[in-house]
């Protein structure tokens, strides 16, 4: 019943994509001559490329159906393996293996090993983790693999991969030549699809693999070994990613970022076509995307303003498919883990204190009034201030994720899309409406207006997002980010390629403050961040904050007390969008030119990853985005010192570059983020945090309880041990063992 409906909606999505292609042709491709030959050629190329997309996507589906883990690093694995292939086959200084052998080594050895390692080290620990953590870890892994590939195979030379069958060999259709290797791709992908279908549905292993994800414990009772099966699935998935990566490499510009953005988004779109479950539909999805791309290239020319529009085809398909999927019901929530026993939200005065302290500290540091012992860093140079500025811009954008993802639980990979919209309004609005004070020469009194105007965009996104939850929500936000980055923002009418740096000022009529120096601009950002942080802390303590967190915990329950879930989402998206939009104003001002790279997928993902690793529910997490800048800055200062080359390397080439990925991967161990753990250690020092001291004492008491076993044998009966024993035997008169144990010793 439902399946029929899904098929219908997918057909609708496909139909819509096809119709838009036809409309685009009618509007923009009218001078291209249509001929049967061209149609055949475009279709052959599309099917061949599409079959590789399908190959990659089925790998993603196999891992998901077996382990329940949606692997954002799938493309990253493919990229890494494709470059290993280049290294051992194509590199002039490498091993120079014959292509067939090299392919076998990578696909049958390197990729499976990588997959098994990933499963053993990371993914098995995440089986019961919340979806957000699972997503962040795989995205972190993707960023890590990509950084690694970028570091090893730097952009110092042009690389290429030759197809397995020489390009020159082929046959003619009319006057156009179709090389054989494209057919080979089609055949390989087809054979593997059939093999997979048989494996999953006709063999014991395959049935067990599909059973594991439904009920792991039950499956292991039947004699299957879930660990082995998930390892096998990851090995298989990685191999398919590797194969797809190597085979697709000859047709594209061979560099990690390019290959990744292709592999990642295409695989995800094709997999979403099959709801990440159905292999046949996934294959259809891959072929459809391949065909759409090749026909788009053949017939349609939108001109130089839409150079990257072809990259948006897969995200658009993804967007359409996700929207066509049946509406998510108000499903039951997940079990939250690792909660504090006493719920504590930051008090308003603490927020105010923190905000003021931040501003003072930043001022003192930047002025160089603070000495670290013998080391006097001195006043910040203009480079230092520039770095600080870019860090604070990121922090401001990151702040917008706190209510949306941290509290309301709406995963959003597109914070830069909102920020970019704010930047666009700031740069364009003045020109359109003839306001004398905007258009790049900003008076900050207009800033709230930008926030207000960005809110509707957030609300619009929420209308779509409200239907979705979990994985599909994350996917659609990724699609949204890519569409904005590839189609909307590169258009010169949206963001001018180059605009002259013009300083901000605040003019309220009777008083005027200019922010035309680097120092004043940096301090402006610090103050804005402090204000934003304070506002969020107040918001969290308000009814809105409570309602958002409640909605994340259980949408079903929130609705039963009268919370309108859709409207609440609209409000939180609008809030987040206006925060990001206002941050975009500073972003636009801080960059001398806004170009396509500013909207790179990785730039946006890095913000999300670092926020998540820090702990997205804490506003102060925004400061963690200065992480890379701080390490780079430290390394630069140390470079003048002798004998610290290793430290410099560690700071600059390791932490600053791999940090975001590694920190996100670290969420395997620490799901609540760094701030949660730091807070646990730090709070008991604060004189007014008696609750934190009691929590610590209770935790220590619980730790002591485990040692009771040695009492009387290896350990003496001390009064503390007796209390611990009492607790374990349940003969304590305390109702809640959370408080009082620290003082309990004297009472005993």
């Amino acid at each position: 019943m439902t399946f029929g409906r899904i098929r219908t909606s997918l057909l609708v999505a496909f139909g819509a994509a096809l119709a838009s292609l036809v409309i685009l042709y009618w509007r923009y491709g009218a001078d291209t001559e249509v001929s049967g030959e061209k149609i055949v050629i475009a279709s052959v190329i599309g099917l061949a490329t599409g079959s590789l997309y399908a190959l990659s996507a089925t790998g993603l589906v196999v891992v998901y159906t077996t382990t329940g883990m949606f692997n954002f690093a799938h493309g990253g694995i493919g990229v890494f393996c494709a470059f290993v292939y280049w290294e051992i086959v194509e590199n002039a200084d490498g091993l120079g293996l014959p292509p067939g052998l090299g392919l076998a080594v990578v696909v049958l050895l390197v990729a499976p090993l990588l997959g098994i390692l990933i499963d053993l080290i990371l993914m098995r620990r995440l089986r019961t983790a919340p979806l957000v953590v699972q997503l962040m870890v795989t995205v972190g892994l993707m960023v890590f693999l990509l950084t690694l590939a970028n570091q090893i195979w730097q952009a110092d030379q042009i690389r290429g991969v030759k197809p397995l069958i020489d390009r020159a060999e082929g046959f003619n259709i009319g006057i156009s030549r179709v090389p054989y290797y494209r057919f080979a791709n089609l055949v390989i992908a087809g054979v593997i699809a059939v093999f997979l279908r048989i494996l999953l549905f006709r063999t014991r292993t395959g049935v067990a693999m599909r059973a594991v994800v439904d009920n792991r414990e039950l499956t292991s009772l039947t004699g299957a070994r879930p660990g082995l099966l998930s390892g096998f699935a990851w090995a298989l998935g990685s191999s398919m990613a590797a194969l797809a990566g190597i085979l697709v490499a000859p047709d594209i510009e061979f560099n990690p970022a390019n290959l990744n953005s292709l592999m990642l988004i295409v695989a995800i779109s094709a997999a979403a076509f099959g709801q990440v479950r159905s292999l046949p539909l996934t294959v259809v999805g891959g072929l459809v995307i391949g065909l759409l791309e090749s026909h788009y290239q053949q017939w349609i020319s939108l001109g130089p303003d839409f150079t990257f529009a072809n990259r948006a085809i897969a995200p658009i398909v993804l967007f359409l498919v996700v929207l066509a999927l049946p509406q998510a019901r108000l499903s039951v929530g997940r079990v939250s883990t690792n909660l504090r026993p006493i719920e504590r939200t930051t008090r308003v005065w603490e927020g105010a204190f923190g905000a003021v302290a931040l501003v003072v500290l930043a001022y003192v540091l930047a002025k160089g009034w603070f000495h670290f012992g013998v080391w006097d860093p001195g006043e910040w140079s203009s480079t230092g201030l520039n770095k600080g500025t870019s860090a604070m811009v990121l922090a401001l954008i990151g702040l917008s994720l706190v209510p949306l993802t941290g509290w309301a639980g709406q995963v959003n990979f597109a914070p830069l899309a909102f920020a970019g919209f704010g930047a666009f309004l700031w740069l364009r609005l003045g020109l359109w409406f003839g306001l004398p004070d905007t258009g790049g020469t900003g008076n900050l009194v207009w800033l709230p207006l930008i926030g207000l105007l960005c809110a509707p965009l957030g609300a619009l996104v929420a209308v779509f997002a409200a239907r979705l939850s979990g994985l599909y929500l994350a996917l659609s936000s990724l699609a949204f980010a890519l569409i904005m980055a590839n189609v909307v923002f590169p258009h010169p009418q949206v963001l001018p390629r180059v605009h002259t740096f013009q300083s901000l000022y605040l003019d309220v009529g009777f008083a005027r403050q200019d922010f035309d120096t680097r120092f004043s601009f940096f301090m402006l950002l610090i103050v804005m961040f402090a204000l934003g942080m304070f506002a969020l802390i107040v918001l969290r303590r308000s009814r809105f904050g409570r309602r958002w967190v409640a909605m994340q915990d259980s949408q079903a329950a929130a609705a039963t007390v009268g919370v309108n879930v859709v409207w609440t989402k609209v409000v939180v998206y609008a809030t987040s969008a206006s925060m990001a939009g206002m941050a975009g104003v500073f972003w636009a001002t801080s960059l001398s030119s806004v170009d396509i790279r500013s909207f790179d997928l990785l730039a946006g993902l890095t913000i999300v990853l670092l926020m998540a690793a820090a702990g997205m529910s804490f506003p102060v997490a925004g400061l963690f985005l200065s992480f890379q800048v701080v390490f780079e800055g430290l390394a630069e200062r140390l470079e003048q010192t002798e004998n610290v080359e290793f430290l410099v390397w560690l700071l600059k080439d390791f932490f600053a570059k791999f940090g975001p990925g590694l920190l996100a991967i670290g969420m395997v161990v620490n799901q609540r983020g760094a701030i949660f753990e730091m807070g646990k250690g730090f709070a008991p020092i604060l004189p007014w945090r008696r609750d934190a001291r009691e929590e610590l004492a209770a935790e220590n008491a619980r730790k002591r309880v485990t040692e009771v076993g040695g009492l009387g044998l290896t350990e003496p009966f001390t009064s503390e041990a007796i209390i611990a024993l009492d607790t374990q035997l349940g003969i304590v008169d305390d109702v809640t063992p959370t408080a009082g144990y620290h003082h309990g010793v004297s009472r005993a």
Partner: protein
Amino acid sequence: MPDAVLEAIDIDVRFGGLQALSSAGVTADAGTITGLIGPNGAGKTTLFNVITGHQHANAGDVRLLGRSVAKYGVHRRAQLGLSRTFQKLEAFNSLSARDNVLVAAEMHSGVRAAARQSDEILERVGLAEVADITVGTLPTGTARLVELARALAARPRALLLDEASSGLTEEETAAVGSLLKQLVDEDGLAVLLVEHDMSFVMNTCSHIHVLDFGQIIAVGSADEIQNDPAVRSAYLGTGS
């Protein structure tokens, strides 16, 4: 029936080929506690879900205070006075017990009034001592009471409790029983509860509906139900 606060009439629900409910109906009157019992899989929770709007019904009507709410969403029905707890715990785990209740109270009251009401309700349900504790760290039974407190804070006219006593100790169950009696007597609430604890049902409910294979097979007082042959065969089997 002037007192019927909540009526579910001729509800049909199909899951694919499975008829989960067929022409099932239930009534809850003001000032009474009505029980809904039946063997596992009879469709009790499905009926609850239809009443609160979590489950789409293929046919039938739900009336709250004489007004059809079948077309309304969950939150709209809640605002009109329909509140519930869940069989599988659905507390706001990362909030404190007080904030759980506050979220509900703030839907209809200002900041101060909501805070005052929340404290009163927490006191009444016996949760004052754990008001600041994060609900996710509380024992299941206590978290169930938080759900009850939260449901009460939404100012319901009809309160639906799905297995209110599971996870509770005997004393807690008794306390919930007397609290419910107090609520229906003093506040005129209509309570509808699904329950497996038969002695609890027989002691607290003035009316009982019995559901089996998606159909109501008996309606009546505790005594009538206990002596009904259809009910006995549904629970004990017919022996054929």
